[in-house]
């Protein structure tokens, strides 16, 4: 497929990127492009200007904050997460999940920031971020703000990041004392998610986020027991989409099964 005409710029600083995004109506940030390019090939979307973030090295760092928080730059690729010693030490689930996304070539290009800002309901990271309590740092003309995962995802392809803003980094609390789990039913091994669920347990409490069942991850908090979590999910009265891969009823069922499995994993890892 072939893209419609588009203009391209590759700024060398975040400020320059922000200026370009606000100066051009219909400008979009280009990160790894592993989804945006395809959607543009289908001409299902046609941004007028692409602002390539490739040269913004400050967005490619993975560091630990003084408080022990893991700070991941938005332009870090899935492969970066898989191979990062900091990730392995601070929050290994990130690497576990990143290694399940698509395939080697896509993991070599696709970025955490792109995955989150895309907010495709089948993505792996939105529910994971919601479950582990990540916060997103968004910068724009108005300066910098921090958004909790719960408020970050607004809808399909819609997030708290305005067209003239950038997600710069994701801050993730260290695993200390908690356990994380992730379970998914995918089309073929490591394929597109039909339903996925991420869970974190700490001091008897579980936070579970289920993906692919609504426009944004569905988050529940309950006692860290499978039954309690299943009840909580049931309590949300999900109305999942019905598509070629799964009926609404099947997705509703998988949401409960996978939430329980994610919690089981999390409990095993926390002990």
């Amino acid at each position, binding site marked *: *497929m*072939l893209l419609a005409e588009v203009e391209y710029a590759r700024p060398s600083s975040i400020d320059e990127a922000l200026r370009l995004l606000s100066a051009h109506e219909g400008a979009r940030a280009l990160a790894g492009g592993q989804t945006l390019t395809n959607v543009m090939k289908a001409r299902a979307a046609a941004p007028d200007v692409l602002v390539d973030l490739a040269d913004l090295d400050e967005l490619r760092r993975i560091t630990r904050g003084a408080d022990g928080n893991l700070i991941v730059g938005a332009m870090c690729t899935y492969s970066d997460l898989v191979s990062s010693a900091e990730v392995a030490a601070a929050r290994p689930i990130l690497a576990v999940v990143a290694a399940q996304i698509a395939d080697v070539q896509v993991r070599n290009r696709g970025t955490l920031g792109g995955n989150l800002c895309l907010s495709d309901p089948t993505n792996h990271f939105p529910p994971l971020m919601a479950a582990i309590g990540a916060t997103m740092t968004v910068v724009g003309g108005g300066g910098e703000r921090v958004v909790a995962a719960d408020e970050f995802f607004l809808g399909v392809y819609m997030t708290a990041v305005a067209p003239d803003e950038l997600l710069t980094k994701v801050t993730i609390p260290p695993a200390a004392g908690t356990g994380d789990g992730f379970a998914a*039913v995918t089309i*073929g091994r*490591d394929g597109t998610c*039909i339903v996925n669920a991420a869970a974190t347990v700490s001091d008897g409490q579980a936070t579970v986020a289920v993906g692919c069942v609504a426009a944004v991850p569905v988050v529940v908090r309950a006692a860290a027991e499978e039954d309690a979590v299943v009840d909580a999910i049931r309590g949300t009265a999900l109305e999942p989409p019905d598509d070629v891969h*799964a*009926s609404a009823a099947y997705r509703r069922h998988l949401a409960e099964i996978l939430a329980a499995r994610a919690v089981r994993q999390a409990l095993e890892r926390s002990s």
Partner: protein
Amino acid sequence: MSETTVAPGQPLTVEEQEVKPGFIGQNVPRKEDQRLVQGEGVFVDDVKRHGMAYVHFVRSPYAHAAITRIDVSKAAELEGVYGTLIGEEVAATTDAFFQIAPPPGGHVKDFALAVGRVRHVGEPVVAVAAVTRELARDAADLVEVDYEPLEPVLDPERAADPATPVLHDDVGSNVIWSGEFDYGDYEAALAEADKVVRIKRLHFDRFSSTPLETSGAVVEYNRGTAQWTIHSNNQFPGFAQIMMAPALRVGIDKLRFVSQDIGGGFGNKICTHVQLVALCLLARKLKRPVNWTEWRTDQHTANSHGNERVFLDVEVPVKSDGTLLGFRARMIDDCGAYTRYEPLGCIIWAQVTPGVYRWRNIRVDFTQVCTNKSPCGPNRGYSRMQHLWFTERVIDIVAHELGIDPVEMRKRNYIRSDEMPYETPNGCVYDSGDYAACLDQALALIDYDGIEERRRDAEARGKLLGVGIGSTLDSGTNNFGQSTILNPELQFSGNNEVATVKLDIFGEIVVTIGTTPQGQSHETTAAQVVAEILGVTPDEVNVRAGHDSYWNSHAGFSGTYASQFAVTGLGAVKGATDMLAEEIKQIGAAVLGAESTDDVYLEGGFVKRNDNPEAALPFMACGAIVNANNAVLPMEARGITLNCRYVYVPPHQLPDKERKYGNLTLTYANQIHACVVEIDPETGVYEIVDYSAVDDCGVRINPQIVEGQVHGATAQSIGAATHETFPYDEDGNLLTPNFYDYHVPHALDMPPMKTGYVESPSPFTPLGAKGMGEGGGAGISAVCAALQNALAAAGKPIVYDSSNPYKRVWELLRNPDDSRALVTVDDA
């Protein structure tokens, strides 16, 4: 140039089948690989011409609609656009494509672009040509088409209802073809039966092999000679020419087909004549070469899908010991919006009417309907795959319902090797095979004896384990005479393929074949046969890559399809090489002063005297003498050309049209597959944990290549059994229009695959070999049977569909009784 053909019906003599041990049967390295591993193959989109225009088709977003207005002016005004083509121009300058069906089904009017009405999403409506790919795509967005949507016809079971809208007004209904097939004495079978198993409905879903290279062409028009050169990846040029020449109102020789490397075909590249005609018109209109490369989404929405088929009111009379007496069924085949190779699918299945089983009394009521979906066409295992899946599903359901072990059930009913050649109830002759031996091997490869232990082990892990068996008959070397059973007026019968083998002036051996390989290694296997006969090595044999109708080494049925190269292609190669060997010997005998050609032999590139091998004439000298020094030849040797063309014609006869009876194909390779699955009962997710495929294609010219075909065909059927399907929504939108939603098995999805083989040489073919490219269908049956077996522990649901994605398995787990309601067993 000398020429010989084998007359139809003339049996091939025994010594023609005796082949000296040598290169045949060995894994010689493929000639094709050297270029392909270096990215130096020439696929159709690699062909470039000066001033070439890129073509993009504007396609219908509606499944069924009247076209009320087309305005291309804005597109035409865009800088860089060379021109456009619309339906009215096509209707004015071409004739509708020839239809295989008799009236009224044959009244379908099919043109290169939609004329007045669109009948499926993705149907080409306008063609736009521009200086770059991107511009052609931009211009397509400027084309304005107004549609008046019509109610789409999507359900094949309701397509024939008078209340349903009609796709093709000239046909008068949506029925393309229908007929009754009645063999043996079905009523007597019912009377003899102890039990009658009835199955309300089975469904074989749409999918396609989706070759990785999509269709495409570069078409040039020579105004001086009014000839088109069509560089394409069409895999059956003979058929394309027959379809295109009358439509374009020109002679067949005006259409030169050229191809070198083709990125997979699997039948899906047979029916591209439709787009090729649009390209021919554009090349002539725009006075420049045109390039069209189909996009993946277009391939899924508008290329040939495998036929969807429903099997209704199935009735199986059976003895209480499991002996199958016959079956009766109503079959409805959905061929999509247009008939391009159809309704051939309505007869092709009959090549394997009883499958691999000793069913003698069969009654089939077969109807083909059109719907507002992508047109169907041959897809690896064409039409037999659907029918063989049906027979395997029936055997398995009957076994489960009667409580008979599926292995026992099969062995009791398999046609036995001592019955070969076996004549089926409809007059087809299975040439050779030992199905039971294949099954034993397949079971041994998956350690069938240990299966119960593995079942318990799986249970301990919370999984349901099941084992299943599937079979396939790969009937090859069609008798096109079967088309006359559908339409008595047709003048098609038999089959043929051509090879030309020459010894050139400097002694090169050059082979030219009429086929269009897409990975079947024809250059290699042809070289093996030639080397064997001429006493040289395959490296010394130069086989031309690809196809060119100007080589004049093709015939009406030339192409690569329907599992026949090992018979027709290599039969032609063998015939031509035998002729060349004889001519070389004549030259040798004359020059070496031998009495006759019996007194010389060929070895190492020399003609040698039997009584004195020292007296030897190199091939190079033979080539030089005949081509450049023939005054030295004795008169009797002057007719020799060392350029031998041979047309292989299989010994086919016309079938009996009234009784729908006769031998419809020459050879029957078979495969037996066994499969072990583990189902997660909580989610319906399952994994194939063990798999075996045993193949019998007679003499294996190159075992490694045969095994490669088994691997590949199996992967395709595993895909079809799991996630590969073409479902439509209620508006007729294809829901899996690309590889994002149409999930093809990748390396992690494929189970460990174990293969074995049995060799039952065909008594009917020049080399004892059989075509074997399409055997994979067994995998669909094996997976379905394994699921059925595993689910027996969960309420015994019936696996009623060929495609079983997780969601369907979960439904079977959740409501086993819904599917159980499809089956009843009555005492007769």
